[in-house]
């Protein structure tokens, strides 16, 4: 079985669990929605601040809701000894990593689409240069999913995982959030040439974090 096929198997399993349990749909998405509302409460919507800071708010909302989605992706491994089953399945550690990261990325992308509609509707944001916006989001999602998956497996199974996981992962994904926000800002303000360096930087982050996960995931899955 090729690595790709193994990865797709794991991703399919995770997405199927998600489709059946609907935790992301019923809990994570509404959470992201209320975060958008809270931002509007914190920053007076009548003074025109919201459209200006919308890219940053969007990515913070993605990050916060994404943390929940990633925790959930590893919570399903904790039940019924799935972690042991995964280890015994003979799947390559790198393939398991890619599969889990793919499933997380798919959920993050869905989250971004919904939140994107949310900021357009609620914050009156005009989407200029959609190609740059989409590419930046894809690159950022790859980085978030890869880094999140590495720390997700690291924290999975620990008694303090709910509190430790955000502390571990947020400093690591801070550069991704920074790059994605700047790229969006540049694209939306009609200066796509300024966005390209950020998109490239995001792509480099994606490659770095994916390589890290590729190497580290197997040993981390084996340990406990």
């Amino acid at each position: 079985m090729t690595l790709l096929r193994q990865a797709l198997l794991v991703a399919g399993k995770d997405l199927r669990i998600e489709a059946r349990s609907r935790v992301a749909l019923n809990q994570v998405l509404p959470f992201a929605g209320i975060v958008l509302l809270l931002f509007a409460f914190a920053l007076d919507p009548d003074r025109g601040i919201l459209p200006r800071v919308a890219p940053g708010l969007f990515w913070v909302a993605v990050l916060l809701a994404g943390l929940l989605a990633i925790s959930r992706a590893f919570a399903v491994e904790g039940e019924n000894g799935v972690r042991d089953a995964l280890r015994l399945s003979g799947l390559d550690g790198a393939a398991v990593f890619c599969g889990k990261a793919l499933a997380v990325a798919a959920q993050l992308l869905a989250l971004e689409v919904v939140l994107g509609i949310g900021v357009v509707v609620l914050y009156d944001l005009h989407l200029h240069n959609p190609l740059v916006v989409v590419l930046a989001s894809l690159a950022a999602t790859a980085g978030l999913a890869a880094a999140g998956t590495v720390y997700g497996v690291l924290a999975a199974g620990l008694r303090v995982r709910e509190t430790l996981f955000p502390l571990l992962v947020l400093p690591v994904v801070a550069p991704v959030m920074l790059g994605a926000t700047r790229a969006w800002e540049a694209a939306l303000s009609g200066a796509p040439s300024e966005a390209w360096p950020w998109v490239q930087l995001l792509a480099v982050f994606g490659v770095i974090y994916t390589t890290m996960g590729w190497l580290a995931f197997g040993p981390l899955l084996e340990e406990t």
Partner: protein
Amino acid sequence: MQKFWTRRGTAVLGGLTVVSLAVLVVLGLFVSDPDFQQGDAVRLMYLHVPAAWISYLAYGVTSLASALYLWKRTRAQVWDTLAGASAEIGVLFTGLTLALGSLWGRPVWNVWWAWDARIVSTAVLFFLYLGYLALRKVPAESAVRARRCSIAALVAFVDVPVVHFSVEWWRTLHQKGTVFNRELNPSIQGNLAWALLSGVVAFTFLYLYLLERRYRLALLEEAVEGRELDAAIAERRAEAEAVPGARGVPERVV
């Protein structure tokens, strides 16, 4: 003999630390002239710069020790212990760097905090390794913890340049010529340079001394843990034997 040497070595290291810190106090507070721009605030630099240097050194040692642990040929528990000890000192000195820099910034820049690339990346670094220390505190079997923490330390190490570049870009793309450029003034000279150098030397000795102490303490902690476990097992055994009819009770009692 070994014990004697380490005790002697620690004492020598401690002595060097105290002497070099005393030299730093004299040079920094009395001999050094005030800077023509920063005034007396420049004296904070004799602590701030060495503290920053020590935090980089400490994280370097943590990463190296973690890599040595992960490499099968050099795998030994001591590397993990060393990595943890060094990271703790690194976090302490990163915190000091930020606090001292803030104290210095208030009189010189008129702000406690500036969104300068280096300041922001140092702050992210601080949280990155705080997370690492939190991970170390999670109870686990020592081999499991060592592997987990070594990987986390290397991931953090890889992340340092990532954070640095992104923040550097962010600040240079948005505001040209940050305040920090002036601080990189290469024309530092005379007694100011000597004071700074003595600060670096003193803090390096201090780091080595603290590292040695922390490392020994960690070894003692591990030993105590092992002993407590043995004692607990022995206690349970004794309890079981005290109960009549329990396994291991001699037949003739009945």
